[in-house]
């Protein structure tokens, strides 16, 4: 399974902070994101934002990467700490 996390506005807008997805049908980041967008119009709109940031195993990703069972994927808005 792949652990998927959502933070800040993204979590609020989806109403969900965490879910588990089967790794077989989500073998790379692009596929996983496309699968999530298919859930409904709200998921499509929230996850289609150009500003969406993605981390795989707690490292920021700009491009597609291969995913394996046990990986942790996180979606969040631009960071605003400091």
């Amino acid at each position, binding site marked *: 399974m792949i652990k998927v*996390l959502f*933070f*800040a*506005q993204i979590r*609020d807008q989806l109403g969900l902070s965490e879910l588990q997805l089967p790794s077989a049908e989500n073998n790379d980041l692009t596929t996983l994101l496309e699968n999530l967008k298919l859930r409904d119009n709200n998921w499509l709109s929230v996850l289609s934002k150009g*500003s969406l940031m993605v*981390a795989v195993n*707690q*490292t*920021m990703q700009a491009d597609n990467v291969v995913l394996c069972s046990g990986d942790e994927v*996180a979606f*969040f*808005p*631009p*960071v*605003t*700490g*400091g």
Partner: protein
Amino acid sequence: MIRVQTEDFNQQREYDCLREQSSVGAVVTFTGLVRDMNQGEQVAGLTLEHYPGMTEKSLAQIVLQAKQRWNILACTLIHRVGELTLSEQIVFVGIATAHRKDAFAACEYIMDYLKTQAPFWKKECNSQGISYWVDARESDNSALDKWS
């Protein structure tokens, strides 16, 4: 030394640790505070959310990059999470070096990268008690240009 904590921190204590070595000639500190106005709103306080695990990892990476770039004798980075009220301390970066130029550059570099790379999110509460997520500032992204 990197810390992510709910508790407040003490400027003097952190400064005293930074200046301990006799080869230190310059200490630069940055402290970020909750200020009363942000993006046109009268701010009463804020909540800092983060991504535990990734936060520490990304801060360690930023500090490592700074150490590869400048001669740093000591470095302290503290970021608070949780509920903060007006004028409270949010973040501390302290750098000790032999020469001032390195200390200024490393301190500003760490803040510029922290602002765009470290997974913290601010939810502000205004004077009417309304909460809202703070928008990222474009100027924080363009601040990175000077380091490339």
